[in-house]
């Protein structure tokens, strides 16, 4: 229908024809979800700076810059387009920074970032392809490789000028029989005026930021709910089995990085299940594993490994929780029948 321009036969418009839909809801983008995550972390960052002062800013800055740098480097090495603008490297950096102790040397933050981005993300093919939470991969790596500077003793340094670091972290105190008197009450644990990793101390800050994130639907609310429920159930069971233990259910829920992990680490969409049922299973698994690792292993805190273990189970959980199509045969029955 090409026509030359005349008054009676105007130029045919150039039409680009494609199957619909052609428009996408403007309210959401991947970048928007990452920005939401950073905004949700703002209360946690604020609490960290209030408790740990300049140390919090130092570790955070190191991790943010390193993660962004390694994201660009590994994308270039892998022949992929560098997409720093999607913000995912910054979110990984912020979470990683908040999971470190205040006193770690600069190279720990840099190595953790390199491993988080390089092994935790780039080796799998970049954003969306990884199985394990990148920040947790980096954290686990430095936890094991630099055990002396990351261990319980590194949190405590009486002369550093910070009020909280004169005492062991609450979970470490619970681990050592002699430290039972050092366990803070529930209110200090909730507010965060205790020792610990940079972001884990204030359950209040995690709650505020995390609830906002769930309200924005950038985090699936079923996961933190399931984590707390699973942890509470396991802690209650442990308390029933051993009523003399130092930590009650409230302590377990408010101490350590359970709140931080529940709202910001476990909810990473890439490494958590797709379906609602799967999310309940995943969260409950993390909650139970955190308590098991805290009580039965040498580690005072179990969030890092609990998340990594459940990440490994996610492909299986996804496979087991495929939804049944409307009016259709459940996938498992279909596989058996075919």
């Amino acid at each position, binding site marked *: *229908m090409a026509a030359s321009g005349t008054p009676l036969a105007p130029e*045919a*418009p150039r*039409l680009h*024809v*494609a*199957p*619909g*839909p*052609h*428009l*996408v*809801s*403007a309210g*959401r*983008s*991947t*970048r*928007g*979800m990452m920005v939401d995550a950073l905004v949700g972390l703002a209360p946690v960052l604020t609490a960290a700076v209030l408790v740990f002062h300049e140390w919090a800013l130092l570790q955070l800055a190191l991790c943010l810059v390193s993660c962004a740098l390694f994201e660009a480097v590994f994308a270039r090495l892998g022949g992929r387009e560098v*997409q720093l603008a*999607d913000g*995912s490297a910054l979110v990984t950096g912020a979470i990683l920074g908040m999971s470190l102790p205040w006193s770690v040397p600069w190279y720990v933050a840099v190595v953790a970032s390199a491993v988080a981005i390089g092994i935790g993300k780039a080796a799998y093919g*970049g*954003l*969306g*392809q990884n199985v394990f939470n990148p920040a947790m991969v980096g954290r686990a790596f430095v936890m094991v490789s630099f055990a002396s500077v990351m261990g319980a003793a590194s949190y405590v340094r009486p002369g550093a000028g910070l009020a909280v670091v004169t005492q062991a972290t609450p979970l470490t105190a619970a681990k050592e029989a002699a430290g039972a008197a050092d366990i803070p009450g529930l209110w200090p644990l909730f507010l965060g005026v205790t020792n610990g990793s940079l972001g884990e101390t204030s359950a209040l800050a995690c709650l505020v930021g995390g609830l906002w994130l769930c309200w924005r*639907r950038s985090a*699936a609310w079923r996961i933190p709910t399931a984590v707390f429920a699973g942890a509470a159930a396991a802690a209650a069971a442990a308390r029933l089995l051993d009523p003399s233990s130092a930590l009650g259910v409230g302590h377990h829920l408010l101490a350590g990085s359970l709140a931080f992990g529940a709202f910001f680490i476990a909810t990473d*969409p*890439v490494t*958590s299940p*797709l*379906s*609602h049922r799967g999310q309940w299973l995943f969260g409950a698994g993390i909650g139970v594993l955190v308590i098991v690792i805290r009580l039965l292993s040498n580690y005072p805190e179990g969030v890092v490994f609990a998340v990594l273990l459940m990440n490994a189970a996610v492909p299986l959980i996804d496979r087991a929780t*495929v*939804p*049944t*199509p*409307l009016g*259709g045969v459940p*996938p498992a029955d*279909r*596989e058996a029948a075919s």
Partner: protein
Amino acid sequence: MMGFAVGDLAAPITKGTSGVTVLTATDLARSRETACVRCGRCIEVCPMGLVPTRLALAVRARAWEATRRYSIHACMECGCCAWECPARIPLVQLIRVGKAHRAAA
């Protein structure tokens, strides 16, 4: 969102035509695709109870057996999944390719 594309302005309007939509380049400007982050929104909105991200990425990977297992034939191409997708993945278009492959096979 379920209308079909017309490539020729000579196509007639029938009494069943409820509307004609013409979009400009600016309307379509925000459709740059990024990686699927498995947010799960497509699954939440799918009225047929499917897993659109699995289907679309399986089609891209030419994993035809996976598309059969995840019931690609049940998709009614309503477009709700693609509307919700934050990563702007062309889910409906990819699922259509997968269905065409099944029809041709």
